[in-house]
């Protein structure tokens, strides 16, 4: 039985994180195997490249009830496919502006560069994200009503 949320308990946001296989996913692995502590609110989805993240994935994550969405890739110049993260940077910038324009809280969507060696940075990004999402409460704007 899943635990029911009582009023006294704090809201725990759910984050969907699209991590690229070569850097960010390895970075999150490093955080894990190094036993670094970070909030367990994130649902990581490994993708081959941050450039392969379609805007539809992001809208769909919000639609299926994500409270926040993170897209993370290699630092510029480090992409396994040479230029995938440059394409992502352009596309995600537009998604970011569009979500802001329709009135979604800008804190709910972010992008980061995390390399395979940056386990600490990854834990920091997730901790910051969770801290920013907690005061906002559940995301109901784009969520599908049951």
């Amino acid at each position: 039985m899943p635990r029911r949320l009582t009023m006294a308990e704090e809201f725990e946001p759910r984050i969907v994180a699209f991590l690229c296989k070569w850097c960010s996913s390895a970075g999150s692995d490093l955080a894990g195997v190094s036993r670094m502590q970070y909030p367990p609110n994130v649902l990581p989805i490994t993708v081959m490249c941050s450039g392969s993240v379609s805007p539809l994935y992001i809208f769909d994550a919000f639609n299926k009830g994500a409270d926040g969405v993170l897209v993370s890739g290699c630092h510029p110049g480090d992409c396994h496919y040479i230029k995938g993260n440059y394409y992502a940077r352009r596309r995600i910038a537009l998604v970011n502006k569009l979500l802001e324009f329709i009135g979604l809280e800008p804190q709910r969507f972010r992008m980061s560069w995390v390399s395979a060696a940056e386990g600490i940075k990854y834990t920091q990004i997730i901790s910051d994200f969770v801290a920013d999402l907690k005061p906002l409460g559940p995301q109901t704007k784009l969520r599908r009503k049951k």
Partner: protein
Amino acid sequence: MVNVEDLRKEAKRILKEEKVKYIIGYARSQSGLMPVPVFIKTPEEADRLIWDPTCVHNLVKFLVDEKRRKSKEKKPDERPVGIVVKGCDSRAINVLLQEKYIDRENVHIIGVSCEKSGVIDEKKLTKKLKGKKIKSTEFDENGQIAAVTEDGKVKIPAEEVLAERCLECQANYPVIYDVLFGDKTKKKIDDPFKSLDKLESISEKERWDFWAQQLSKCIRCYACRSACPMCYCDECVVDTITFAVSADTTADEKAGKIKWVEKSPVSSENFVYHLVRAMHLAGRCIDCGECERVCPMDIPLRFLNKKLEKEAKKLFGYDAGFDPDTPSLVSSFKDEDPEDFIR
């Protein structure tokens, strides 16, 4: 000033010389003020062609249809198709050329200049003339619109009846053409994104309320998609029914297909649909305003596309539809693209 007789003469000439298969243009309709798209196949019919401020449609959509039709023909007629285009429509052709959807030799572009004016918004004009029956409209040499009603000729300042997009137009004459009618006078625009100011200045919550109210009206008739010359995908991501289904496809397989967006017109699904459409048109939308014009629920869809047009210009210095030889917005990048939003 565009002389319609010149336009008809040119149409007759190219049809007589059999240079084109047919000409897509505007013609007077049987009822009402607004014209209808027309397909002229013989020189005799060419007299039906018109050009006046009521020619609002973007006919480039028919080039997309033509390509589909041609691909099914066994022995297709390889001659080009003639098309009458305004400035905005010519940019749509440029985008199709840029994406290699059509070839330059498949289209004979007959450009008409809007000069200092533009096309009218039917609703605005009817409101302005308080419901009087309008027989015809014409361009005025000073960039004004002259409307002929049952009481005679009325001159109206253009900014009062022009379509919203024409007030922010960045190409009032065709940027690509084989033959051009009218002058290449550039209309002076102070701020091509002025209509966005109001929405951008209000708070995030008010913006959400605005869009939630507007998009919950959507009935998902997909008229915006059908009218858009850029929405030419054979399979649309929001249409689960267009997935390839063969005789061997089982019911289980059909049910298990990825369904990104539910078909039911509820707010959350409408948001996904319209956001996806906006993203798919980023750097491609040339602001012909057809989506908004055909919307039966009067949703201001143009704002979504206009916003991304503005960001493309501001962040990446990109203008859609001016140069068919440059790479498109999302299939190119620069080293100095902004990344201040990335952590």
